[in-house]
């Protein structure tokens, strides 16, 4: 066997059914081995697209996504996608070609030190210098990527290792003495957390992406209902708690709901579940949840006490922790606290002024309505992303797929392709901006080529909308380089072989969306919206959560 054939066999052993990739000189042997392999390969039009597609595939399915690129520029084009997966704890294995071992370190053609480059943005990485290490390395890579707090692992394979002769030998269980993916849950930590929860009068549960990763949505719901505790989620936690549940407060933080931010500010106990107190969540950290004792549950001990002080911490898998914790608690009934939150909800609902020009929020609400809320939604980054988070009601885990930590424009379309590849029978929408869609628009060709019928809804305001919003609010309306000249998205869609349609009247939105759902292939919809609509509420940068504007 060649090293490449061993690689492909190892990938099959790891359960890989789909690879997103792009060939090149240093991966010829690998592509030769893939030529008649029983693995679906999806050729993206840019390596960044491959990384995001693998990421979207992983987030939608819960399985590890795989992307493949050649050395040098192929590998460096993956970098943004790898960093994106790292920030959002997505299991990803990135395989890159590399210059042959004899030329390593000589600045040879298309050589880049990709293990060095990705050191800070991978959970771990490998350079396979000997074909005998291939099978073991791939096994370890998948094990590390998917266990504990998931993350990307890169495997760099020199051309001569991929082309060299070897034999596949079952590597057995990974032997990694320094890798403890999951801390053992300590009984006394659970009891300490339970004591604080039992003593609380105004609890709020703050749930993050860890709930979804851990598969703990049911346990979270049980906890919330037992305590009658309102639940707010981070951007990454959306879908981890049913968005139509009476205890749901929506998202907190910079563009959270007023009632979520008020609840966090006035609660006497904050139960953080699989969340990491990101600065977009806390606002000014000194005044975050000022009256609250904090219970922090997370699989990564390094997140505990990193950004805020906590009063009780349980390190461990969220699902297991919640299962151990809930039996120690007592049922609560609705009282003054819940009534107060109900008043906030009535007094400060999430709403926008409808009328006049087509509003972005209307487009999102209509997508929700015509899909019956059952679509998988990816987003780009900026206003489109925040409106999607605010105005689509997500009720299932893994249905809202967005770039949270890194905030990567250009994520949504390739991610939607990955989601559609993982969920062929479901409706997949990319809610996009006219700026960010152009960052990976070449992937429309991938969608057409592979019959992946993603629906792209461009919220087209002719601006880099979120940056423009900040310029309006904090830079005296000096719109420095944020007004966009755009291509004709309808013609562009048609040039790719997709359907394209432009909408500028609210009355036409539903009809166009219904038509898009009836269309068997990809559709790109250009929703020409009110140009200077802002995302509100908004906590200005550096302000406390209760200091919302809008």
């Amino acid at each position: 066997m060649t090293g490449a054939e061993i690689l492909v066999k190892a990938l099959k052993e790891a359960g890989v059914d789909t690879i997103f990739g792009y060939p090149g000189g240093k991966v010829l042997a690998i592509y030769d081995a893939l030529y008649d392999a029983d693995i679906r390969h999806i050729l993206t039009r840019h390596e960044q697209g491959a990384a995001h597609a693998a990421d979207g595939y992983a987030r939608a399915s819960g399985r590890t996504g795989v992307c493949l690129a050649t050395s040098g520029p192929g590998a460096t084009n993956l970098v943004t996608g790898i960093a994106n997966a790292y920030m959002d704890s997505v299991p990803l294995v990135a395989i890159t070609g590399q210059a042959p071992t004899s030329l390593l370190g000589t600045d040879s053609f298309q050589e880049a030190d990709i293990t060095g480059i990705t050191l800070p943005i991978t959970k771990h990485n490998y350079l396979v210098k000997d074909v005998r290490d291939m099978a073991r390395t791939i096994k370890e890579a998948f094990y590390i990527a998917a266990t504990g707090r998931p993350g990307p692992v890169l495997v760099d394979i020199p051309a001569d290792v991929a082309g060299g002769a070897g034999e596949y030998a079952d590597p057995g269980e990974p032997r990694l003495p320094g890798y403890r993916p999951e801390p053992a849950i300590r009984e006394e930590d659970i009891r300490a957390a339970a004591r604080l929860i039992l003593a609380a009068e105004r609890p709020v549960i703050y749930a993050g992406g860890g709930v979804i990763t851990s598969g703990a949505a049911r346990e979270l719901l049980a906890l919330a209902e037992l305590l009658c505790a309102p639940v707010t989620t981070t951007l990454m936690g959306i879908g981890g708690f049913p968005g139509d549940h009476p205890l749901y407060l929506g998202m907190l933080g910079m563009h959270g709901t007023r009632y979520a931010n008020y609840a966090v500010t006035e609660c006497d106990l904050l139960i953080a579940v699989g969340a990491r107190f990101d600065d977009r969540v806390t606002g000014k950290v000194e005044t975050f949840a000022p009256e609250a004792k904090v219970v922090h549950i997370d699989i990564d001990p390094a997140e505990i006490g990193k950004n805020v002080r906590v009063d009780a911490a349980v390190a461990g898998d969220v699902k297991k922790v919640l299962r151990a914790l809930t039996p120690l608690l007592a049922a609560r009934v609705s009282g003054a606290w819940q009534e107060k939150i109900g008043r906030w909800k009535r007094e400060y609902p999430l709403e926008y002024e409808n009328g006049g020009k087509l509003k972005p929020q209307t487009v999102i609400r209509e997508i929700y309505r015509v899909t019956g809320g059952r679509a998988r939604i990816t987003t780009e980054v900026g206003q489109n992303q925040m409106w999607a988070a605010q105005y689509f009601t997500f009720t299932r885990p893994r249905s809202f797929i967005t770039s949270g930590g890194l905030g990567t424009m250009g994520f949504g379309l390739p991610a939607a392709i990955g989601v559609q590849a993982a969920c062929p029978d479901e409706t997949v929408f990319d809610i996009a901006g006219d700026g960010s869609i152009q960052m990976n628009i070449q992937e429309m060709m991938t969608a057409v080529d592979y019959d992946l019928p993603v629906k792209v809804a461009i919220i087209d305001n002719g601006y880099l909308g979120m940056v423009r919003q900040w310029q309006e609010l904090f830079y005296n309306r000096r719109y420095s380089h944020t007004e966009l000249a755009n291509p004709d998205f309808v013609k562009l869609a048609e040039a790719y072989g997709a359907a394209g349609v432009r909408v500028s009247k609210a009355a036409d939105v539903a009809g166009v969306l219904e038509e898009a759902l009836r269309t068997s292939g990809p559709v790109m919809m250009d929703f020409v919206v009110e140009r200077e609509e802002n995302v509100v509420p908004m906590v200005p940068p550096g302000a406390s959560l209760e200091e919302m504007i809008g």
Partner: protein
Amino acid sequence: MLHTLAVLVENNPGVLARVAGLFSRRGFNIDSLAVGTTENPTISRMTIVVEGDDQTLEQVEKQLHKLVDVIKINDLTAEEYVGRELVLIKVAADPAARGEIMQIADVFRARIVDLGRRTVTVECTGDERKVRAFEESLRPFGIKELVRTGRVAVLRGYRTTSADGNGRNRKGEED
């Protein structure tokens, strides 16, 4: 305050870059770092002297534990341990000054390791205070060059920081 960490790592290529990169990108201050293989050739040991308060140190340890190649961390600071570093100092020494330099070396139990026409190179081992005092004693003669290893450290008594030793394990519990 300064903390002395004994860190056992897999002897893999790039492990030093992983550790050093972690310190720089998270803004932890390394005072010194010494690394070499151990009695087990697959395991290297780093002695890292790091500056920071308790909260910083907690983060340093937790972040280090996330590196797959890091097997074990032992913060020796609060323990009874022996810490040593080695310094090589090349001092300007015309023949008239040599005798005095040799006397100073004797006092510090340092050794002359090279003798040139106009310089003497001395080797001194000890804790930082001793090494610093030695350096100060030689300064009036004119230090031409100075190189130090950074601290290496080991627990006193029977306890060890080997991979299967009875120091503290990675969860901070006694083995």
